């Protein structure tokens, strides 16, 4: 069994996963440190709810632990696989939530730093607030595409793999998502004197 410092130095996710399957307890810590943050951030941006994002992140990692013994090295990139599982779980949850209750906008506030500062900081914060509210109004697939592209800065081929679709379809989703955001965030909504989020919320309701 390899010691923790050796495992942390392993760059290859496949090797770490093999070590985990062989019973190395520190491999789980190394994989968690490497991937949990990104998965949780994606789930939180998708769901806008901390408890649900935690559930999705935990469930995603649990699936990783279970699939570890059968994992075929080199067949898929682990990070891509994790993103795909997390985005599918988040999308399922979104659909379930939308069926049962309206979206909870207040949860999105946790994504935005509300600390007061100079005017430009305030404007930026308002703009981000408006952006997140608008993002939350997009259809699930468009929301996922925008999140992966602009917040996780993924390439379109990676996005296509995660979303189990073609690059052309990803481009279409991004285009429609951006146009929908532009329609919601029309000039005048994010003004220096106005509360952008509140204005947008009033507009979209």
């Amino acid at each position, binding site marked *: 069994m390899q010691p923790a410092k050796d495992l942390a130095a392993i760059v290859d996710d496949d090797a770490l996963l093999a070590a*985990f*399957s062989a*019973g190395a*307890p520190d491999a*789980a*810590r190394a994989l*968690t440190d490497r991937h*949990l*943050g*990104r998965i*949780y*951030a994606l789930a*939180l941006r998708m769901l806008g709810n*901390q408890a649900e994002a*935690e559930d999705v*992140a*935990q469930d995603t*990692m*649990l699936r990783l*632990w*279970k699939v*570890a*013994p059968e994992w075929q090295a080199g067949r898929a990139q682990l990070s891509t696989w994790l993103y795909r599982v997390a985005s599918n779980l988040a999308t399922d949850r979104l659909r379930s939530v939308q069926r049962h209750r309206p979206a909870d906008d207040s949860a999105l506030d*946790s*994504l*935005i*730093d509300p600390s007061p500062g100079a005017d430009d900081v305030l404007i*930026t914060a308002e*703009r*981000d607030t408006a*952006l997140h509210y608008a993002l939350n109004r997009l259809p699930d697939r468009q929301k996922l595409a*925008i999140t992966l592209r*602009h*917040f996780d*800065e993924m390439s379109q081929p990676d996005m296509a793999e995660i979303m189990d679709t073609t690059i052309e379809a990803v481009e279409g989703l991004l*285009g429609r998502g*951006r*146009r929908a*955001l*532009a*329609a919601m*965030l*029309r000039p005048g909504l994010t003004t220096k004197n106005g509360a952008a989020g509140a204005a947008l919320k009033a507009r979209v309701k």
Partner: protein
Amino acid sequence: MSQENEIMAQLDAADKTRPPVPPGLVARVLADATAAQLAMRPAGNVIAMAPSRPVLGWMASAALAASALFGLALGYSGPDVLTGFSGIADLVAGSSSTLSSGNDELGAMSAFLAEG
């Protein structure tokens, strides 16, 4: 700049700070990992916990084998062979003197054993 370009610029300028992972989530994920590892190889873990030292040392094993061979030889050749050993012969003779009739008792025991 078109509206879509403006949105792209806005998206690119948006705060991309990753939210901190709650410590409770990390603990739950690692607990799941431990449980999954245990479920993967329960037999391996039991073996790993067992002591690595052998049950008998080599001297004990040799003594056990020697006494087994001696018992086998004794069984085939009969108890009289014991008189061939000087120390044991004295011991047997001494024991016999304390008994009423050693030979009779030995014969009685042989007869009893023969009856099954």
